[in-house]
């Protein structure tokens, strides 16, 4: 159990996304991704803030860097950018492989 667990998890997800994109020869336009991400990021971070306030879940801060903004560890905020990137890469890959 250590401070790098959550950042390590994000690194594994990010590395998986980059590996899949590389092997499937999928290119993700950064501007398009950021534009698509913004509304999703806002809604899900707000959901997370409310869920933590209501006690739906809490964080094991001993596994994190310890930087918390309001009630959100920075890793949890980064989660809502890294995981959507993974999903977009998977989406573009499956579209390419099994057609539209």
């Amino acid at each position, binding site marked *: *159990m250590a401070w790098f*667990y*959550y950042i390590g*998890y994000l690194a*594994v*997800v990010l590395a998986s996304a980059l590996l899949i994109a590389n092997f499937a020869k999928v290119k993700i336009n950064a501007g*398009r*991704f950021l534009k*698509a*991400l913004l*509304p*999703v990021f806002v*809604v*899900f971070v707000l*959901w997370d803030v409310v*869920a933590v306030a*209501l*006690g*739906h*879940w*809490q*964080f*094991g801060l*001993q*596994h*994190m860097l310890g930087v918390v903004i309001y009630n959100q560890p920075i890793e949890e905020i980064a989660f*809502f950018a890294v*995981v*959507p990137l*993974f*999903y*977009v890469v*998977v*989406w573009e890959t*499956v*579209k390419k492989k*099994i*057609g*539209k």
Partner: protein
Amino acid sequence: MQYTLFATVALVLSAALALRAKLPHGPLLALSLIAALSQLIFDNIMAAAGLWQFDFSQTLGIAVPVIPVENLLFGLALALATITSWER
């Protein structure tokens, strides 16, 4: 079961948006399966390690095997919302 309610509403909304956007069904199914599978593996490992701790009294009480089933709905809602926004 407040988390159950939140997660169900989010999944229904994002699935409705994805279908309304006429996203192709084959890739949608494949993405959903991959999203569910990767969550089953990674989120369970991390929840078992204690990264996230869930209040099961806010859920149906069904754990698969560590994370509540609501968390899978959460992840699917995130996947569908993301690609719907991406394809807009």
